[in-house]
């Protein structure tokens, strides 16, 4: 039977606050609290756009004769927001503050607050860096993912307009260490040369939501992309080269392709596949391409990011796969949610925070993931495909490890966190992500769980550490400090599942705790933690 060291033996200052929190709260410094914005976005256009999104959704449900799920409760929405924006479940500290907030528009104000938190920048940087630079690490001399992620994080946190970011990514010049956006280009370096095909394919996928990489070898089977069009795009990147001053453009560099059949070489000039009128005459070929991609009339640009943000928030993009969208609709009748989101985004300066707030305020984001139709028959699928219920999706490995760390810590884990947790996060995250099954740059695909994942959660070293009874772990502190068995169970549920136990669950665990006293309760709490980490509810976005 492990003995639980008392926190005082570790000389840790104990901050006693009123209520249950006080008994489990522990900190070396006062909690850092961001100011709460007084109001949600006040301007009428936001409400108009939101109403248009919701109308598009409700019209669709009516048309299909569907009764949507009930609204989700606020804690469930808080969990979704926290996983979507910070990649972790909310801390107990956050939950307590959130529940203490009795002012109107609570969720909307908390969304705003989460967008101001550096963890938002870091987590979104992680997600976007896969899309923009692939999952492989490439040549470290030329590609610095750390710099790239730090730069992305700053842009997301400061809410840099997406069109500006895009132009800097596509056309940036300079050293990859000094001008981190150029890592978009150097990530495609292959033995010192830049792979124009890779850059063209990535640009179109990441920014326009189209897959034309297939056209690299043959004409795209579905869309109108032709091999020739792909070559023109690839040629836009051919002037870029690696120099001692970093990425620079050499207009004299030619782009040659080898014909697959005849093996003859022919020169290809930079060109865009459609809408030549957006293609400026001035600038380097990369600058011209960037201007074309971000041209206000290029509906693909806004639809692509709207689809991606929808996917990041709801776990499933509006249209799957996230980067293979059909051509934008030509008539107003055919327009859908992506067009509404896209227009609002463009008309408000390509404001990502606003887009995220719009998506997370939509009816679907606020619906429950449970619906009686899921218990029998086939109606569940129809409801889900029409967004009449919040879809279930597997947490990414980064979200899993982030949530396990957060759930084992009670206080918010961020850069102010205890060193112990930061070290674990640093040392363990990569291994865990690898073992859990890195999704690489294949974002937002529907996946089921795997056996090695179950084994890793059930028996892995990391889960063991996280549910262990140590003086800094939540399970350890709860075991020692929770005033009553009920409180211990409730806190465990809140920290792991962001909800309180049902009566049945409470009684089940009470029956295990009741006969035990003091330290003997430790293993029961530890097993409770193990259970919660391994529950489907913990491992899925819902």
């Amino acid at each position, binding site marked *: 039977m492990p003995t639980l060291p008392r926190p005082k033996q570790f000389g840790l200052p104990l901050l006693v606050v009123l209520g249950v929190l006080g008994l489990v709260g522990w900190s070396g410094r006062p909690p850092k609290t961001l100011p709460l914005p007084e109001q949600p976005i006040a301007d009428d256009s936001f409400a108009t756009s939101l109403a248009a999104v919701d109308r598009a959704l409700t019209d669709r449900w009516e048309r299909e004769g569907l009764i949507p799920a009930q609204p989700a409760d606020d804690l469930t929405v808080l969990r979704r927001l926290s996983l979507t924006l910070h990649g972790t479940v909310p801390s107990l500290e956050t939950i307590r503050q959130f529940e203490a907030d009795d002012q109107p528009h609570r969720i909307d104000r908390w969304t705003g607050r989460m967008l101001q938190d550096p963890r938002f920048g870091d987590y979104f940087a992680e997600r976007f860096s896969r899309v923009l630079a692939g999952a492989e690490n490439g040549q470290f001399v030329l590609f610095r993912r750390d710099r790239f992620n730090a730069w992305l994080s700053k842009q997301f946190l400061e809410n840099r307009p997406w069109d500006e970011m895009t132009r800097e990514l596509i056309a940036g010049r300079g050293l990859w260490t000094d001008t981190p956006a150029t890592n978009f280009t150097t990530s495609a370096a292959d033995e010192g040369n830049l792979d124009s095909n890779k850059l063209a394919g990535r640009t179109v996928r990441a920014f326009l939501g189209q897959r034309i990489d297939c056209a690299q070898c043959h004409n795209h089977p579905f869309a109108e992309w032709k091999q020739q069009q792909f070559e023109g795009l690839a040629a836009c990147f051919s002037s870029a080269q690696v120099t001692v001053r970093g990425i620079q453009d050499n207009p004299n560099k030619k782009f040659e392709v080898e014909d697959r059949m005849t093996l003859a070489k022919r020169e290809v000039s930079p060109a865009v596949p459609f809408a030549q009128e957006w293609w400026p005459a001035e600038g380097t070929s990369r600058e011209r391409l960037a201007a074309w991609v971000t041209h206000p009339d290029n509906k693909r640009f806004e639809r692509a990011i709207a689809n991606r943000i929808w996917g990041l928030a709801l776990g499933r993009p509006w249209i799957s796969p996230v980067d293979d969208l059909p051509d934008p609709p030509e008539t107003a009748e055919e327009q859908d949610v992506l067009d509404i989101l896209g227009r609002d985004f463009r008309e408000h300066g390509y404001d990502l925070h606003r887009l995220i707030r719009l998506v997370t305020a939509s009816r679907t984001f606020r619906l429950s993931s449970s619906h009686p139709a899921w218990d029998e028959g086939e109606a569940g699928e129809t409801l889900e495909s029409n967004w009449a219920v919040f879809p279930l999706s597997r947490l990414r490995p980064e979200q899993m490890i982030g949530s396990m760390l957060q759930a084992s810590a009670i206080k918010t884990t961020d850069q102010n966190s205890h060193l112990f947790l930061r070290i674990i996060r640093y040392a363990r995250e990569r291994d865990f992500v690898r073992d859990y099954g890195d999704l690489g740059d294949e974002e937002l695909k529907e996946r089921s769980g795997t056996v090695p994942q179950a084994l890793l959660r059930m028996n892995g070293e990391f889960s063991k550490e996280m549910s262990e009874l140590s003086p800094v772990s939540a399970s350890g502190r709860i075991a020692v400090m929770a005033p009553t068995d009920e409180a211990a169970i409730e806190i465990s549920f809140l920290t792991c599942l962001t909800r309180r136990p049902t009566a049945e669950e409470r009684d089940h665990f009470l029956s295990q705790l009741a006969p035990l006293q003091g330290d003997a309760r430790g293993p029961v709490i530890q097993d409770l933690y*193990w259970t919660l980490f391994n529950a489907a509810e913990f491992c899925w976005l819902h």
Partner: protein
Amino acid sequence: MNLHRRHFLQLAAGLGLSFAVPGLGLRAAERRGAERQKSLITLWMAGGPSQLETWDPHPGTEIGGPTGAISTTLPGVQIADLYPRVAEQMAHLSLIRSLVSKEGDHERGTYMVKTGYRPDPTLIHPSLGAIAVHERPDDRIEIPQYVSLGNSEFPSRGGFLGDRFDPYRIAAAGQDAQNLKKSVDEERQQRRLANLDVVGKSFAQGRRRKVDATLHQHTIEAALRMMTSEQLDAFDLSAEPEAVKLAYGDSDFGRGCLVARRLVETGVRSVEVNLNGFDSHAENFLAHRNRAKDLDPALASLVQELVQRDLWQSTIVLVIGEFGRTPKINPLDGRDHWPTGFSCLVGGGGLKSGVLIGETDPTGQRKDPSDPIEVPALYATILQALGVDYAKELLTPVGRPMKLCAGNVIPRLAASG
């Protein structure tokens, strides 16, 4: 509920109450000869082994370096003198000296040689081993049907077949398989699983069919099944006689090959064992001498044992890496990447033995080997021998039709009948 019953059966098994468990068919282990289902063992030579220091030496030439050649049990075929024990087993194997690929980068080359396809930014192809498991599953096997032993920089993937077809990876063979041991005693494990049922029930309300589709419970069941399976013994070398372990060599790779033999004996469809360290841009000859110390005893013992145990007809062994190395020796006494005219050994599983294909230029002037063989052709041949319809088209998740393998069988090598 069925799942609960299953739990208890497995728990019962864990407690040693094996009578409670229905016959889980270790029969696969008992079958021998041609009636067995076929398995594949891939020995992956990571980094790109030099053909000249392995199976295609050119002693006494400018490109040959100091490496000598020895005769083998395959008449007329010599291999590098670093491999005396493999030389004794060569009659069971066939040798291709003219593999060609277009990928000279480690990551791309590995992808090409593991999958038979060039890297494609729009999808990930499954590796050969994953295809074998996908097409020839065996539900009597409670442990993973695709196992990768030893560290690998670019691991094999299930690709568009799904994560379920990723290999189960074990860093060092012969040690405890990763995460397979429960971390608490049986009583607590039972309490944990009972807890899980309680918490799972709340979540399933109004989500039952959806939660079923996540396979969450299924994967936990499968994990528990594996944790309590007698077949796990295949990973454990303690029952192997010292002499056998010694014969494979005291190395992770040697132990990996021995575990591989035990795994296919148990009925595991597909195993790969990784040997790293062939990327010899400098000190090529020293590096290859050191690799041979691990590879020679392990490979020779593996072939020998599979033959002796009458598993050779049902087990294909493939020894291959992402490419070969340049005939030209660079100023650092190294060899660089060479994706044309590199070698592999293949045999067993009913494939023809004693076949030699291809020839490289002893002067190193001519880049292309005679009788070039592309990787997809080799894989079509292997898949056919495994009983897989290699030309079958599957739809990828985006609805693109994709053949399992884009090559055609090499008749000289193909299993007869």
